[in-house]
């Protein structure tokens, strides 16, 4: 282990100074023997240790033995941390390719991928498990997660078709045109990046060239709670509106509500999305009821939508949508949008939307 640790240190030192390169060659010879299960060249190991310990030996020979043990421990730590670091770097690279985030458990924390809201994983991360003292669980979950990621590699090589993931009672931002390709976005009403994507789609004229549909997915945050407290309520209203559409509406009612959430402001100029995220469920319910009236629902229809939103029918639709997002599309980032044969995890810029083939 010592010569492997020394090799790692010498690799770093050799990058900045040529004087260590000769010793690096010796260390490599030693490492090559170790990794092929042959005894290490003890001369090299002893040479390095003795040269490191010599100054101490002259002053305090009695400390040489504990210092020698400490060197071995440090070597083990260097090897372990290097192996772990390499593993995490490779895993992050794999995650970045498969999920467009280096941290699958908390995609929002990775600045390398596109901006997005994380879909928190139900299993604790490796370090969370270690922190809880569950070492076996930590490795079990880690390898399980890695296996899942590896199994999704083919999904990055496949051609994505939005039509295959459309939800029940799908609605489109603009009237459906069979001559246009379909784009499907996965959104959470409370996610600020979904708001930005919505604005980018508007600004780029993307919805004029694509039949834009959506799957509303309130990002879960543990047992029966959600990342944005009112998202589930809003999504249930959206699904209920899809089941009870406004007759003769040019823009579907659910899209009109989405438009108000993502683009309107309150009387003091605060984004409605921020207002909704900070408001109580009762306040949001009243707000939605008011918006429904504004866009043309009668009082009875509002009551019906309200009743359907709380029904098992909508719950079932939301469960189906959740299945589309988590099991079929397997994204960990919201928003995700599928168009032109590709899956784009996270926020897509106006420029990219403008450059879409259409």
């Amino acid at each position, binding site marked *: 282990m010592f010569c492997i640790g020394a090799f790692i240190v010498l690799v770093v030192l050799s990058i900045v100074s040529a004087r260590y390169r000769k010793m690096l060659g010796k260390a490599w010879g030693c490492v090559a023997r170790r990794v092929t299960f042959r005894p290490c060249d003890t001369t090299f190991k*002893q*040479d390095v240790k*003795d*040269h490191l310990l*010599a*100054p101490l*030996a*002259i002053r305090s*020979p009695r400390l*040489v033995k504990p210092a020698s043990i400490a060197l071995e421990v440090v070597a083990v730590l260097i090897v372990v941390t290097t192996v772990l670091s390499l593993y995490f770097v490779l895993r992050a690279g794999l995650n970045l390719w498969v999920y467009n985030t280096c941290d699958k458990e908390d995609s929002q924390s990775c600045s390398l991928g596109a901006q997005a809201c994380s879909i928190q994983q139900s299993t604790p991360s490796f370090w969370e498990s270690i922190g809880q003292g569950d070492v076996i669980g930590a490795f079990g979950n880690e390898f399980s997660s890695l296996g899942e990621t590896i199994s999704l590699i083919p999904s990055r090589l496949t051609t994505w078709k939005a039509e295959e993931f459309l939800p029940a009672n799908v609605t489109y931002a603009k009237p459906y045109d069979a001559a246009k390709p379909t784009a499907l976005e996965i959104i959470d009403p409370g996610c600020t990046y979904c708001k930005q994507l919505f604005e980018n789609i508007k600004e780029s004229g993307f919805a004029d060239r694509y039949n834009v549909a959506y799957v509303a997915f309130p990002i879960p945050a543990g047992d029966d709670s959600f990342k944005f407290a009112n998202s589930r309520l809003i999504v249930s209203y959206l699904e209920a509106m899809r089941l009870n559409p406004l007759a003769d509406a040019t823009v579907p009612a659910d899209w009109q509500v989405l438009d108000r959430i993502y683009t309107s402001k309150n009387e003091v100029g605060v984004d409605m999305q921020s207002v909704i995220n900070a408001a109580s469920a009762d306040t949001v319910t009243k707000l939605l009821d008011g918006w429904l009236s504004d866009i043309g629902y009668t009082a009875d229809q509002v009551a019906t939508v309200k009743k359907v939103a709380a029904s098992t029918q909508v719950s079932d639709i939301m469960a189906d949508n959740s299945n589309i997002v988590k099991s079929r599309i397997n994204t960990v980032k919201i928003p995700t949008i599928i168009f032109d044969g590709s899956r784009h995890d996270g926020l897509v810029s106006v420029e990219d939307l403008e450059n879409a083939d259409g």
Partner: protein
Amino acid sequence: MTAADRLGIDRVVRPRNADGSLDVEDALLERAVVVVNAVSNIDGRTVPNLAELVQATHRRGGIVVVDAAQAMAHARQVVTDIGADAICFSAHKMYGASLGVIVATHELLNSLELAFVGGGMVSDVTESSFELLPNEPWSRLEPGLQAWGEIIALGAAFDWLGSVRPGGVTPAVHLSSLEHRLFEGLSDIPELTVINAGPSSVISVYSETVDAHRLAVFLSRAGVMVRSGYFCAHHYLKETRGLPPLLRFSLGLHNTSADVDIALTQLSGLARGLR
């Protein structure tokens, strides 16, 4: 070894007696090439019966080649007038420059097969042959340009060794004083085993608990230069005597009693602290 293997000649390794002498049966000396080191590079032992060995070998038609690498600087008398056929030594071990030296008899030189022919070796050259210099048999080992700088330095080293008076005394007296001081000091360190039976300019020790290579590195850090290992005597030390790598002190005319004291202080501290 390689010559014996190549020519199919039997090779016999004989052990020395405790006093350094060699007992070799006459039958083994029949047309033998006897190679012996005049002073041990492990413990400085000489071969007290070296002259008798040379005579016995000559009686049986053999030759004797003496390795005098250790002897030339400190015990030149042990190879003087012994009648050996060849004496080999290294100039750098007697304060000269890097140069290999062979002192050989005319008879031996004239009997050598030529390995190389070069400038300064021939008196005449014909279309199909050549004639070697008739009265300069040493030239058979000196084809081409010689290392004149090193040869001149060797002469200067001989002159210096003949005139130097370290501390106002002869080299032999000076060295003898240091040898006794070092030998006694090393013998007084309980953690060490001294290989030598008595004082010598070369003294080897080992520790049962601390590796000699480690001690050498630590002593080097303290400014004390020593050798560690088996000194090319692996067969004798490792296989025959079963010893661990040794730590070897080599005293020279440049050393002082203060040097010896520093070495002893550092080594005793290390041996005690590292056990």
